């Protein structure tokens, strides 16, 4: 049974995020006209990196359960970390934790204990800034992801399979991504094939389609194409999705179409929750 390998410092796993940075990412989300897609995605990725570091933190420091990479694709394509990590493809989570490009202060509302809300300042580390410029060279990004993940698996042949999450708002401008996506999904450790999940962000107000198990109700051929290159959820992840209120079958895929920011954050949480940290 695949996708059961322990994730440990001796046998780490990997997350790679592919971020569409094309010009259309400047447009707002359909469900939230005040929020640019590029900004929402940058916040979601920064928060995810923060949470991952927190999950891996122990009293003696951050344990390297994961290696993490962020690749942007648009006018310029390549590793998208800022600051000291600029140019790095995969970075152990302890180095990610130690090297945010900067730490912003944000304000959040917390309960004041008497039924009201008060502002509380919280630290918000930033590794990745929003960019929106140029076309959508998705094939190029998937091909680069292939080479990065292949290198990781060569070093960690028994790892929990790497998870690649592609966040995009449009069609690839450099060809059909099916071939590069399938090549990426065909890579495998002894514990299973690489998982490729696709999150499509929408400027339309249409309701998001989350975790579909067939292409039947998908609105167009583009949605069907992305569905076709999204991996099925492994059993443990179906369990997490079910806990979060999604109905799943064995054909459920890691795919969101017409995603709102809320659906993107929810998906990232389910798709990156650790299964078996040791």
């Amino acid at each position, binding site marked *: 049974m695949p996708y059961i390998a322990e994730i*440990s410092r001796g046998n780490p796993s990997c997350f790679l995020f592919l971020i569409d940075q094309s010009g259309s990412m400047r447009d707002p989300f359909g469900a939230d006209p005040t929020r640019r897609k590029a900004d929402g995605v940058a916040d979601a990725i920064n928060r995810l990196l923060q949470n991952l570091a*927190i999950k891996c933190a*122990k009293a003696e420091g951050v344990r390297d359960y994961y290696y993490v990479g962020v690749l942007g694709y648009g006018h310029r394509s390549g590793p998208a970390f800022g600051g000291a990590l600029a140019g790095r493809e995969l970075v152990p989570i302890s180095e990610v934790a130690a090297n945010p490009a900067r730490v912003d202060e944000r304000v959040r509302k917390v309960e004041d204990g008497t039924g009201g809300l008060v502002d509380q300042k919280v*630290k918000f580390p930033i590794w990745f800034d929003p960019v929106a410029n140029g076309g959508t060279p998705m094939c190029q990004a998937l091909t680069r992801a292939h080479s990065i993940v292949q290198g990781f698996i060569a070093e960690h042949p028994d790892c929990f399979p790497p998870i690649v999450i592609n966040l995009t708002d449009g069609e690839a401008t450099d060809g059909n991504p099916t071939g590069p996506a399938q090549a990426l999904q065909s890579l495998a450790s002894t514990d299973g094939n690489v998982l490729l999940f696709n999150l499509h962000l929408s400027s339309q107000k249409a309701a998001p389609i989350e975790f579909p198990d067939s292409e039947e109700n998908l609105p167009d051929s583009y949605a069907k194409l992305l569905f076709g290159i999204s991996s099925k959820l492994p059993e443990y992840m179906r369990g997490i999705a079910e806990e979060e209120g999604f109905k799943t079958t064995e054909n459920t895929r890691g795919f969101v179409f017409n995603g709102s920011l809320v659906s993107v954050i929810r998906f990232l949480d389910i798709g990156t929750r650790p299964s078996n940290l*040791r």
Partner: protein
Amino acid sequence: MRVESKTHWLPKRGNKLSEYEDAFYPREAPRGREGCWRFAVSDGASEAMLSGPWAEILVKAFCRSRVPVTKTSARGIIGRAAMAYEAWLKEYLRRREREGRPVQWYEEPGLEAGAFATLLGLSLVSGASGDGRRWEAVCLGDSCLFQVRKNRLITSFAMKRSSDFSGRPVLLSTNPGKNRVALAKLKVTSGTCLPGDVFYLMTDAVAAWFLREHERGGTPWVTLEASDFQDLVGRLRQEGLMRNDDVTVTSIRVV
């Protein structure tokens, strides 16, 4: 009547000894022929920060108490342990500052959430009538107590079957405000023991294996006594028969 006890423990495969987050007490076998002997094990939750020190404080708090084991006295012990943890945490944070390693942003949420652990305590009470001796036990979470008499398992507390292990046990928090639900699930039991009886206090990974073996008609206590602990655990983990977790087994033979 006297008792002979020993404890075997190991961290998760791949972890250092210093990263072991179970706890047991006493660290050395008790001496003397009479008195009230107490033993405890605790399993600190790996997902939380500083669960090892919390587990350590809980087992000591139980073993240093002298009042009979009841739900009420156990709640008192847990409450005092939480206060002891607060004091320990203050000193820990001061030490980090002194050593030039102040708390980092990625540690803050874990420290705020607090540490979590199970608790299993056994008290062998003096003054019972006849040949027997009364024992009392308290359990919160999935650490287990077994009593073996004449090569038969006669007590299994609080888990009865290997399928009872959910992987999501009830845990005691260092934050008393979070313990209301957990404390409602506190269990106490008692019984009598005879010379020759052996008690085992175990954390979940080894306890689940123990119960599974027994359900198959086996005598896992014989396997435990006859094997080198490290070899046995290594083999069971390798064969997928034991989860890779911190393991602790305290065995107490009534002589």
